[in-house]
């Protein structure tokens, strides 16, 4: 399972990087979203998979899944949501201001 998930993570990273390298603003933002998906899965995988029951003490299980990566991912999900939201509004403003969503055309002045 771990190996399979790791390969999936690598695959998602590949897609994310390719999207990041494109010219369209929305594709770049999608790239960051996919990259954070990959990161969450990677964190999860690193903690070991299906090694015990859910980390709730009431369950009275013999062993629990590693809870630390879950806590980290919870934080990361919320933050990546905030970043995505901000980037989207930024893209919207950029388009309003410059009339383009093509990054090749969005370039600073010569002597900046």
């Amino acid at each position, binding site marked *: 399972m771990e190996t399979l998930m790791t390969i999936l993570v690598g695959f998602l*990273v*590949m897609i994310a990087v390719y999207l990041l390298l*494109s010219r369209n603003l929305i594709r770049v933002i999608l790239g960051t979203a996919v990259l954070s998906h990959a990161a969450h899965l990677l964190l999860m*995988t690193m903690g070991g998979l*299906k090694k015990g029951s859910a980390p709730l003490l009431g369950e009275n299980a013999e062993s629990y899944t590693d809870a630390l990566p879950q806590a980290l*991912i919870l934080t990361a999900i919320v933050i990546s949501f905030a970043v995505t939201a901000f980037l989207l509004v930024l893209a919207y403003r950029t388009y309003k201001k410059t009339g383009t969503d093509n990054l090749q055309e969005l370039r600073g002045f010569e002597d900046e």
Partner: protein
Amino acid sequence: MTISLSIFIPFLAAIFVPFLYKRIHSRKIGWFILLVPLVLFAALASFIPSIAKGETYTHTFRWIESAGIHFTTYLDGLSLIFSLLITGVGSLVILYSIYYLSERESLGRFYVYLLLFMGAMLGVVFSDNLMVVYVFWELTSISSFLLIAFWYHRKKSRYGAQKSMLITVSGGIAMLAGFIMLHTMTGTYSVREIVAAIGQYTDEPLFFFAMLLILLGAFTKSAQFPFHIWLPDAMEAPTPVSAYLHSATMVKAGIYLVARFTPIFGGEMTWFYIVSSVGIFTLFWGSFNAVKQTDLKALLAYSTISQLGLVMSLFGLGSAALNEGHSANSIIYAQATFAALFHLINHSTFKGALFMVVGILDHELGTRDVRRLGGLMAFMPITFSIALIGSFSMAGLPPFNGFLSKEMFFESLVNVRNLDLFEVGAMGTIFLVVAWLASVFTFVYSMIIVFQTFFGEFQPERIEKPSREAPFGMLVAPSILAIFVVGIFFFPNSIGNYLLRPAMAAVYPTLAGAEGLTPQIVAWHGITSPALLMTIGVIILGAVLYKFYRYWRGIYTIAPLNWNLDAAFNANLILLEKASHFFTRLYMKGYLKDYIVYIFSFFIVVVGGAILYTGSYTFDFSNDAPVTANEYLIVLAMAVAGLSMLFAKSRMSAIILNGVLGYSIAFFFVVFRAPDLALTQAVVETVTTALFLLCFYFLPDWKKERSPIGTKVLNGLIAFAAGTIVTVLALTVQGNKMFESISVYFEDSYQLAGGKNIVNTILGDFRAFDTMLEVVVLFIAGIGVFTLIKLKTRKEGQDFEDQ
């Protein structure tokens, strides 16, 4: 303790100046500032008797233990002389500036800079730890920069400030490297400990380079040839600043450094030759160039360079006394150092007075060009007297203090010819001749200051303002200095016994008790003394040269005497700017894509390279959990969804595919026993998709990417490599467990935090700060989103942004 405080008092005062300036918005604020150096001067002067008895004071704040950096202050004879100069001349300069600067200037800023400088300079001379010395050293450069550029609206001020900053700071960095080398050898940053330990390290290869680098710092700061070019341009600063920083104190920091390091490097042949010959040549070059200046302040700048060279060369000559195997007669060479310290004090008195005189001329007449001045004696009798005293002292005439130290300088040079060390031979004679010639030029320019300004024909039509004597307040400070110039001549030995003797003990710790280390200063050495004959020669030849100046003026146009180092400096600066601009433009293209390419290429090369190079890619699949059929299906679905995203024709399908990824991950969270995550992921994914859709309403539909096939292939390669490396890295990490997991700790969450949901207790208790900061991030993002949207409504409403 008092000493440590005295460093901080100016800094503290500087903090309060802006508040005070709000209350007292006039030149009266200067009187409050004046209290700072006056109090410090009195406090430091109270140490004179005990220091004269041979005591020293140290005080240490333990600071950075692991790096051996402590805030240690050390008061001995040498630092006492410098600190008295800093606070004494500082008081006079502030007194003078009260009358010099007009109320329209931003006085608050001026005094803040001045106090910053004073604190930094006291820090340089009192600190025992080299790292602390370095920090204060650079702080003096920075405050000097700020003061030179005080009239920042003038182009020349900015140029002078930049030049001085570049030269002194690059010297400072060289010095830092030298300090670190000393630390590498001796294992300590404390000057006193290095002095005690250096004997066994003189043969180390680093010893020589440490010496060179530290000298580079000293020479740039003290404006020694060929680094002297910043000093004349620094004269763009207000005159009180020139009198204070660029003649009496800051430029002497390099001299202080040389004096402080004489016990460490002194006695070495390279040290002797470098310090002496650079000093002597600077002495000559400065005085030779001073003669041709027409701006009185530029003349004084070159004269300062020349006098600094004199003091520097004396320290070089005096270092010979420390050579081992030569102790019997070595006392006589130590007298050069004595002369250096003595001249240091004298120079501060007469040069400070002269700068203030030039400031008065500039202030009252609106010009300081010698060609436009003349016949001012009748109008400005007091200014004239001060100028006369200062110039004649500088020229080395009795009855002024310059005569005494100049005679001692000549004597030291005569003595060096008998030195049987370092294969001196003909070099001694060359030193003597060059120094004597330099003194002749010194005499000539001193006469120019007096006679061309105050005698001769009065030219009212070439002067902008009516000539009259300066206000009383402006004359007080230079008069006090002039009194010192005369007073020291008549009572030189009180200075010698109370200030110079302990300072000599600091420079020559090994010879401290020796008989005759500090000679009695006498004015009359007998008619046959070589020094007296040399002085008489200087006067005769100098008078002749002054009289017939217009006939030999032509030599200033002959190469190599007309070589201009400034031009070389400027050309270099422009070249550097162009080159750095060119190289920066090569990679800073301004396209987001390029930067992302840099980031990922770096990642691929460094991480991938490290994995390949160390060969650590070992995989271990034995611990893998089993995979069920639906999990295979979901993985397949995610892979297909991800891949189709790349080829999505419309943005709508792309965002739906992203949603597929997100919900699949939520499913995996369920499988992996993470119920909280699954819930959060599902909610967030829903909101994100909604946000994307909302945004699409405003954005244009995306067009097909029309990039060349080569670019696409390159992008694909980078993406593929990045993905592969992540996989390999992650598998490697899973295959090698190097540490025990710390997660077991959190399983006691009920005992430790009173919660049964472990994830919740981690977020809400164990790592609560993390969660708090996460909320802050959300808050910031929220503000960002709000502002960006809010600005838009205004724009539509009143066209706000285009105004």
